């Protein structure tokens, strides 16, 4: 076997430039595949974290809430009781939210907006403030007078910090109307969301529209990678059984099915690209091996005449192909891993996709990272390329007749 290996290795380097070019092509395919897979992993994790931060990993809602349109039909009564019940079953952080469609007005202008009253755990509140607050403060827990508006909404209403804000929420179950003071301005990646967002404390929203109720309770688990999401299924099934009648528990995938569909499409798309890279690289490997065989036809005839069987010849050709591919994989893999390590500290693509990225929940900073199966997938592609590229030349070589081969002239 060692003799066969050394013979194959020597054969490869007979035409140094051609072999180097082939190794380079395989190295490029491996490099791009690793880079794409790590980029995909980073995007997946980024979108996953952005999305789950805004809607939670799991969400308690009124059953059939999508078909219900009236505000009162969307309410979870005794929200604090439901939240306390969930607290006994899970350690996940919980956010109680009440969404109220309302008319929001300043002294001269008004706009329709979605008012959100919520109660977040302190660390989540601090993160929200860090990410979204641009001026002032967020209404404190239990604050009945302060309101924070999206910067675009405040601009449209010609409001500044400290100005009075009038909220009119007809058809609700609370006071239905109230005056607040603008205490904070918020920025969101999606400009349309910023132009219709208003934030109150949960207590203020409940007083305005639905005492004691909420429209959703979010459960946030300490998952930071999309791969951890697989743990969610059993937890969801277990918690759903504990909920009272009329309530449903949905995962973020069920809440945002369009984004979940994008997630399902990302990996196959990258694998199709990887297959194309390796297909092109494979053609170069095939070309190299076949040309090398043509040039050595007479030599192969002698080898066969000396007693080498078709299996040995096939092995030699396959080995040459695998050596070319594995050398390329080594170089490309090394360069890929070094690049990924260098960029794992994070880089921004905001200049590339601008505000549109925020609309789709794309992360502002990309942290390249590889998932457990990314390296085996790439190596598998390289190995398969080597084997497939060698298949036809190996068959040609194995079927050589010694006398004819020794008479062969290219």
């Amino acid at each position, binding site marked *: 076997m060692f003799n066969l290996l050394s013979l194959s290795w020597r054969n490869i380097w007979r035409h140094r430039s051609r072999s180097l070019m082939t190794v380079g092509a395989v190295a490029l395919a491996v490099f791009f595949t690793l880079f794409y897979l790590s980029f995909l992993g980073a995007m997946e994790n980024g979108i996953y974290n952005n999305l789950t931060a805004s809607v939670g990993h799991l969400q308690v809602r009124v059953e059939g809430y999508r078909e219900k349109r009236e505000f009162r039909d969307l309410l979870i009564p005794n929200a604090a009781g439901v939240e306390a019940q969930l607290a006994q079953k899970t350690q996940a952080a919980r956010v109680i939210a009440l969404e109220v469609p309302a008319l929001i007005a300043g002294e001269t*202008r*008004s706009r*329709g907006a979605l008012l959100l009253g919520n109660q977040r755990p302190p660390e989540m509140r601090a993160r929200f403030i860090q990410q979204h607050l641009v001026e002032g403060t967020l209404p404190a827990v239990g604050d009945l007078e302060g309101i924070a508006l999206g910067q675009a909404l405040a601009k449209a209403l010609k409001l500044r910090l400290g100005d009075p804000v009038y909220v*009119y929420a007809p058809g609700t179950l609370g006071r239905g109307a109230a005056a607040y003071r603008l205490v904070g301005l918020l920025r969101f990646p999606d400009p349309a969301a910023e132009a219709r967002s208003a934030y109150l404390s949960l207590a203020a929203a409940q007083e305005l529209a639905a005492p004691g109720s909420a429209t959703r309770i979010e459960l946030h688990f300490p998952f930071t990678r999309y791969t951890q999401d697989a743990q969610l299924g059993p937890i969801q099934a277990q918690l759903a059984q504990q909920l009272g009648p009329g309530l449903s528990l949905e995962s973020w995938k069920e809440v945002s099915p369009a984004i979940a569909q994008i997630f399902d499409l990302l990996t196959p798309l990258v694998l199709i690209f990887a297959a194309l890279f390796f297909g092109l690289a494979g053609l170069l490997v095939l070309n190299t091996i076949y040309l090398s065989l043509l040039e050595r036809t007479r030599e192969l005839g002698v080898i066969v005449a000396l007693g080498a069987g078709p299996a040995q010849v096939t092995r030699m050709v396959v080995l040459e192909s695998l050596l070319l591919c594995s050398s390329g994989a080594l170089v490309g893999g090394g360069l890929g891993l070094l690049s990924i390590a260098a960029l794992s500290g994070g880089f921004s693509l905001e200049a590339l996709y601008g505000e549109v990225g925020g609309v789709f929940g794309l992360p502002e900073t990309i942290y390249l990272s590889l998932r457990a199966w990314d390296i085996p997938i790439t190596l598998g592609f390289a190995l398969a390329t080597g084997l497939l590229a060698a298949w036809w030349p190996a068959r040609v070589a194995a079927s050589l007749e010694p006398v004819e081969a020794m008479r062969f002239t290219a």
Partner: protein
Amino acid sequence: MNLRFLLLICLLGLGPSNAATDPQAVLKAVVDNQRGGSLQATLTLNITRPERQTQLVLEVASDGNERAITWVKAPPREAGQAFLRVGDNIQLYNPTLKRVLRLPPSGRSDSFLGSDLSYSDLAGRDLEQDFTPRVEAESDTEITLELLPRPQAPTPYGKLVLRASKPGFVPREVLYYDQRGQAVRKITFAQWAQVGGRSFPTQVTVEDLLRPGHRTQMVYSNYRFGLPIPESCFTVRALEAGC
């Protein structure tokens, strides 16, 4: 030759007589009937939902055209609110806020106090302003108009089909279609009062066709037509103080 010429003249004469129905004029006549000229009335809204029923009592004063003012009298929870429409401008007064707020144009099709009515249904001539009519079908007793939204019209609907009886173009039914062509809302008119040559429907039922059991019936009572409504009624001051 002369006979052929006579026949041609007859045919040409028949054409214009069928096409003479001016859809815009028909729509104007329908809206005139629907609004009934200047009016003062009590309006009772019976809001029906699968699991509950709510009643609102309103006082309305309208010049029958583009100006109307509505005060909410009952239930106590909603009482004191008032709505003023002058042309495209809708303003509302809320006693809790003690303020007048202006409703943005996009809010005109929003639900009025949780009912199936929109702010546009209460007053104004949006059907004429926002839609281009076309005669879809016509018989001796009935005419059907198809109304398509004008460009930039602040309406969520893709098409309306209005049915009126002849003569007089008395409104019978309006079907609202969404942008995909699905019927989503139906307004039915009944119990007409004869007012100076107009047939004013005193009972209007609005049905949500997407949600069975969601219906709002609007019944006019104590109505008085043709009264001169003072100009002071259509002012912001009247929202709070009345007129």
